[in-house]
């Protein structure tokens, strides 16, 4: 149950005047072309302007386009990291194939269901939990007001029902329709007003006043990842489109162009990974983004970058697996391939953001790590970050003292793979006189000459491992919150639901501790031991059938034998209620 619901239950089940709630969740449904996404996005944006936090996720039927669609939106005075357990309001523009969202749409008896189709037969999902049912005859309304569109009326109704300021909505509608001329703008406003008027008939808790502290951003995880990479210095990218990573590329392409960089669409993932290796060899900070199938194809050449010591940022936006799996849904099941998927002993870096806005930080940090250690870094984002739109605090501007170690004036005795104290060897960039060497994926001596000798293999293996193990990662390795004696160890997109569940189960923050790893590999056993100091209980939470994260922790850390596990696959996203129930059970 969301906090909103808790409050409503307690105070206003039958009230006809609306009370304030810090969090409100709604869904909008409709079939192809009904415009639910536009309406929901305008609502989200209006909420952001008003200072709320929020999260919008989208769901579509199997049709490539024009099929049924659902938008889920949670708005709050507090940061929102996962959709509310249940929606307070469901607006269906129509009910065609609405049954398909059964698994995703949770109603309760308190939910207000508004049917936009007069006299429609409602599907089970809308009636089974016995919610409050209301109707707005969109067809009749839009017919009687020339040029108005059903989704705009719905938008007005939802805004009115949950108490979003009419002005913010009106501004946005005008901005959107400004290109279409005065008449369209006026019709849009009329539609919104019709909705607001209809909403006056329904009682629903209204959003509590928004905090007015920091400016808000609306951003998706994929945009944040792309921007983080640019902030990290990435200027050259090559990639092949794949769901759900494509938006990173589509966001980056024009923006790289603008700042003198370049994104190339390659013929396949084998080409894209090798193009960026070439670019990085030449001196550019580089990136590719893909999902599981593409990462698998890239693994041979990521190994090349390990052996030849080439910095790369590879973003994997995870989706349901294995194989082609479920491209449009989320899962945390590429951890193993990211950590262990290269042949031979191939030390590299694996990171993971823990929220939509952390995609920005982690991408920037990962670029810093890759460049500093001359190593490929794989960042594991996922569909639930990548394709969701969040209203977040404007992220801080951060600069890392990144600089690739470059041999500025290599002398006669220049050795590309010299054994240095840190394991990082200055790289001569093509164009630098005297620095000529051949980068090689064959085992090599310090100069880069192929060698199958025992000593060279041992030394170069050791150097490549040492440089990533001994690096000073600082505090960014994990997000640690609370200091209770029951620790939840998690990562990535499981973090938000866990955090929200912790707030419910332990509102005072006395019993629980959150440890969310941002640096997955190389493992930081000493740091984790310190973070776990004083814990008497450990629960690992992750979204993978085979408990990949748990297995990884067991392999790489001295995980106490009492460690418990809550793991399940996607595509069902984690909700706070689910985790909270698990926590209650675990703590008792």
């Amino acid at each position: 149950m969301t906090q909103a619901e808790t409050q409503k239950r307690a105070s206003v089940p039958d009230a006809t005047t609306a009370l304030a709630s810090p969090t409100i969740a709604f869904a909008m449904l409709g079939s192809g072309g009904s415009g639910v996404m536009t309406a929901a996005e305008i609502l989200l944006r209006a909420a952001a302007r008003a200072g709320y936090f929020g999260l919008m996720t989208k769901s579509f039927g199997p049709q490539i386009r024009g099929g049924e669609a659902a938008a889920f939106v949670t708005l709050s005075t507090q940061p929102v990291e996962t959709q509310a357990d249940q929606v307070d309001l469901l607006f269906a523009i129509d009910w065609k194939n609405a049954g398909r969202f059964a698994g995703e749409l949770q109603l309760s008896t308190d939910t207000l269901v508004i049917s936009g189709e007069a006299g429609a037969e409602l599907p089970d999902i809308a009636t089974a939990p016995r919610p409050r049912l209301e109707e707005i005859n969109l067809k009749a309304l839009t017919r009687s007001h020339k040029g108005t569109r059903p989704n705009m009326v719905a938008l007005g109704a939802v805004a009115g029902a949950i108490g979003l300021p009419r002005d913010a909505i009106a501004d946005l509608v005008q901005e959107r329709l400004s290109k279409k001329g005065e008449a369209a703008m006026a019709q849009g406003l009329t539609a919104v007003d019709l909705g607001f008027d209809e909403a006056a008939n329904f009682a629903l808790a209204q959003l509590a006043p928004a905090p007015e502290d920091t400016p808000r951003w609306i951003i998706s995880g994929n945009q944040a990842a792309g921007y983080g990479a640019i902030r990290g210095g990435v200027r050259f990218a090559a990639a092949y489109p794949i769901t759900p990573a494509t938006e990173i590329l589509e966001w980056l392409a024009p923006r790289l162009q603008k700042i003198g960089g370049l994104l190339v669409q390659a013929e396949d993932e084998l080409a894209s990974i090798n193009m960026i290796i070439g670019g990085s060899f030449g001196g550019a900070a580089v990136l590719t983004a893909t999902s599981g199938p593409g990462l698998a194809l890239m693994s041979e050449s990521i190994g090349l970058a390990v052996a030849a010591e080439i910095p790369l940022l590879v973003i994997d936006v995870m989706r349901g697996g294995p194989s082609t799996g479920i491209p449009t849904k989320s899962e945390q099941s590429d951890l193993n391939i990211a950590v262990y998927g290269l042949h031979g002993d191939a030390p590299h870096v694996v990171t993971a953001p823990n929220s939509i806005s952390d995609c920005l930080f982690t991408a920037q940090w990962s670029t810093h790590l890759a460049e500093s250690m001359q190593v490929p870094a794989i960042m594991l984002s996922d569909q639930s970050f990548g394709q969701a739109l969040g209203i977040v605090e404007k992220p801080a501007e951060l600069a890392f003292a990144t600089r690739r170690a470059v041999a500025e004036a290599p002398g006669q005795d220049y050795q590309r793979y010299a054994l240095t104290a840190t394991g990082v060897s200055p790289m001569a960039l093509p164009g630098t006189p005297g620095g000529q060497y051949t980068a090689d994926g064959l085992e090599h001596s310090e100069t880069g000459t192929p060698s199958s000798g025992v000593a060279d293999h041992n030394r170069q293996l050791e150097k490549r491992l040492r440089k990533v193990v001994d690096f000073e990662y600082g505090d960014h390795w994990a997000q640690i919150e609370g200091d209770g004696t029951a620790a939840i160890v998690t990562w990535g997109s499981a973090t938000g639901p866990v955090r929200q569940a912790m707030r419910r189960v332990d509102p005072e923050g006395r019993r629980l501790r959150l440890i969310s790893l941002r640096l997955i590999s190389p493992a930081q056993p000493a740091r984790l031991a310190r973070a776990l100091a004083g814990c008497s209980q450990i629960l690992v939470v992750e979204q993978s059938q085979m408990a990949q994260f748990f297995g990884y922790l067991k392999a790489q850390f001295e995980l106490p034998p009492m460690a418990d596990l809550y793991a399940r696959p996607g595509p069902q996203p984690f909700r706070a209620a689910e985790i909270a129930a698990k926590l209650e059970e675990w703590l008792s």
Partner: protein
Amino acid sequence: MTAETARRLTARDYKSALKPVWCPGCGDFSILSAITMAMAEIARPPEEVAVISGIGCSSRVPAYTNCYGFHGVHGRALPLATGLKLSRPDLLVIAAGGDGDGYSIGGNHFLHACRRNVDLTYIVMDNQVYGMTKGQPSPTTPPEWDSAMVPGGTGLRPFHPLVIALAAGANFVARAFSGDPSGTAQILVDAIRHPGFSLIEILSPCVTFRPEEREWAKQVHPAAVEETGDRAQAARRVLTDDGFNTGILYCGDRAPYQPAFAASGMEPAGGGAAGNADFDMEFRP
């Protein structure tokens, strides 16, 4: 004496001190010489040249030059070279390798490199066999050539690199023979100078696994006709020639693909920095 004349470059300046692993008599030795001769004629300082390869006997060539080199993984020389050239247009970038590397596992990149037409020079040392893995048929191997892996021969019509290159859009297509290093060097000079993607297919006998290829020396002959800028004519010509016609066979005028890239040049990457006000703006609600 000007700085320029102070550094008059000879073929030797482009050769490294490393001893090649090639078998005595391998055609690749002469190709290495031809490459260094061509470099000396082009006269870009060695540090401004990058030689990029995949895996195979022939793909060992980068380390035998005194240029920057990348000996990557099997079949991926062209995307490596493409990424380098697109982000470092100031460099002279040469890709080199074998018939297996380029036409078998690397076939897709070959197609798309021809089509993309980045200003690269691609040298294929074609010995019609996989040398490095000890004698399996490559796409250019004659159909009847018997081997352990394909007993009785593949029975397949050999892959015709020149025709494919023309069909796919390469901007310069030539055939050379390792036994004629100075002729090969001259073709290389023209290929390097020609903008866009240039393919130089060089017949290079594998004396170990295809000893009969020593006969090639007797079979090659210079193309009887002048180079052409007519793609269809060039294709017809190479389709009907005997496979031993050497020389520049096609010279096109497609503009090379080189989107602007101003970001790195010689600047080392990764100066992790503050945001960009324009980009920040987009995220305002």
